[in-house]
């Protein structure tokens, strides 16, 4: 019996969401009175032994070059095999892009019940019940997993990473890797941009900004805060901003520490995508905008005046 945490990497670097999954998985192991181990696929330039600081004693690595690209079918077979070899009864993923591709397949291979999008530690007082977000963040469901082996994928930004001291033993695993049926031919990363789902701060704009030519004030603010940029659905639909920036029920769901909404009225569908944010700031000239009801802080005022001032004040704060 143990907890196995899948650690996701991209171009040799471990993703932030995986540190959350590690912290979470170690806590689950503590609850169950067992040990937590990590699993990394492919070649990694980051120091794997240092993952011990999240509380794992062992990091298994299947270092096969064909695992540097994601083929969910190939990944699932390797992860399920590693889980079986290490006697894992719980397998933890981040519910990020890789987790969404792989966790469900692993669950089938292990005939394990899956809770996808978990946001809290399991309640083991009566069975094994995991809370997850449903209705795109409008509510939570407590889901009982009844199978012997359990798979959990953890919503990014829903569990705080705790790093302490410690080093882990790195254990090379030799597991046969199938030839991939998915061949990645190109990768286009928007350089210099903070990925929306991993961002601590998100600055988002709506129709109140009147046109794509006015986005400069928002970009300046985002730059000053090291924030990712996002937009409402009408803005994405009008192609003022790229569609991957659209947050809301039918777009990306985010849960940053700080969400700043500029010129967004706060339709119920938009709120569903952002209401797990820890702190919400709304800037809107309409005091009746429904978004104020969901906000922690607000300014009723003209974005074109308020936003540049806000950028200036943040500059001042950082200079202190």
């Amino acid at each position, binding site marked *: 019996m143990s907890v196995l945490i899948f650690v996701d990497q*991209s171009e040799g670097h471990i993703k932030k969401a995986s540190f959350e999954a590690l912290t979470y998985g170690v806590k689950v192991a503590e609850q169950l009175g067992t040990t937590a181990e990590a699993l990394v696929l492919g070649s990694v330039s980051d120091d794997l032994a240092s993952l011990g600081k999240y509380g794992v004693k062992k990091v298994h690595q299947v270092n096969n070059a064909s695992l540097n690209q994601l083929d*969910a*079918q190939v990944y699932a077979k390797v992860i399920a095999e590693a889980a079986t070899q290490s006697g894992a009864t719980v397998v933890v993923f981040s519910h*990020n892009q890789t987790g*969404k*591709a*792989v966790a*469900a397949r692993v669950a*089938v291979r292990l*005939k*394990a*019940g*899956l809770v*996808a999008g978990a946001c809290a530690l399991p309640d083991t007082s009566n069975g094994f019940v995991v809370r997850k977000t449903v*209705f*795109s*963040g409008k*509510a*939570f*469901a*407590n*889901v*009982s997993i009844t*199978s012997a082996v359990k798979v959990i994928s953890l919503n990014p930004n829903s569990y705080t990473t705790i790093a302490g001291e410690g080093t882990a033993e790195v254990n090379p695993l030799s597991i046969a890797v199938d030839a991939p*049926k*998915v*061949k*990645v*031919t*190109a*990768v*286009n990363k*928007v350089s210099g*941009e903070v990925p929306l789902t991993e961002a601590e701060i998100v600055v988002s704009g709506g129709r109140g900004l009147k046109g794509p030519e006015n986005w400069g004030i928002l970009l300046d603010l985002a730059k000053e*805060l090291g924030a990712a940029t996002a937009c409402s659905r009408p803005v994405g639909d009008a192609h003022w901003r790229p569609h*991957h920036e*659209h947050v809301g*029920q*039918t777009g990306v*769901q985010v849960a940053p520490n*700080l969400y700043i909404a500029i010129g967004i009225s706060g339709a119920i569908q938009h709120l569903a995508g952002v209401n797990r944010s*820890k*702190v*919400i700031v709304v800037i809107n000239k309409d005091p009746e905008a429904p978004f104020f*009801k*969901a*906000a*922690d*802080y*607000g*300014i009723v*005022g*003209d974005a074109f*005046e*308020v936003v540049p001032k*806000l950028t200036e*004040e*943040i500059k*001042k*704060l950082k200079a202190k």
Partner: protein
Amino acid sequence: MKILVCVSKTPDTTSKIAFTDGNTKFDENGVQWIINPYDEWYSLVRAIELKEKDPATIVHLVTVGGADTEPIIRKALALGGDEAIRINTDNSDSYYIAAQIAAIAKDGYDLVFTGKETIDYNGSSIGGMIAEMIDAPYISLATKFELNGTTATVTREIEGGEEIAEVALPAVVSCQKGIAEQRIPNMRGIMAARTKPLKVVEPVAADALTAIVSFEMPPAKAGVKLVSPDNVAELVKLLHEEAKAI
């Protein structure tokens, strides 16, 4: 080319979410039901586009649910597709549902399309599970999809960008924004949908590995603290000292 499009019934995006029976059941009172937007706008429309390009393409729709899902399936058929299959069972466990669809999907389909997730349970799991059950490759979160004979070129979302991949068919693909443009059914489509075959099949034996114990609403916000637009410095101070968000 034979395509299976998975369609799910979900509450309308504007629905007020509430629960009954001691928070164990979703309150369906006054809820408008729609086709899950990701299924309708993206996977179904992309399948219809592929059929328009190559009329020999067969598009089947599949849904898992009781007779109350039939209006949704008819609406989907009004957009396009040759026939629909309803698997007559109701369950919230993704393994059980995927097993039902996999039993259909293994019957000679080259492609299985799903939406990237349903807007009610947000699992993003059914596509991956079907793929594992029928031993096919799976591309999740696709924003572009082009067929080239026995392979497809798919663009998928990754953190901070996108990846273009070649995949061998048969394959399972979860679709999202970008892959197709939303359509509205026309009168001809609505009329044609009435006579399209809608087969009802009974579920295959499968285990449910999870069950919803209860629902909860998120805690209400304490209320907004308003700051004067002439005192932006105060907002920054609050965010820094009180909220510790910057």
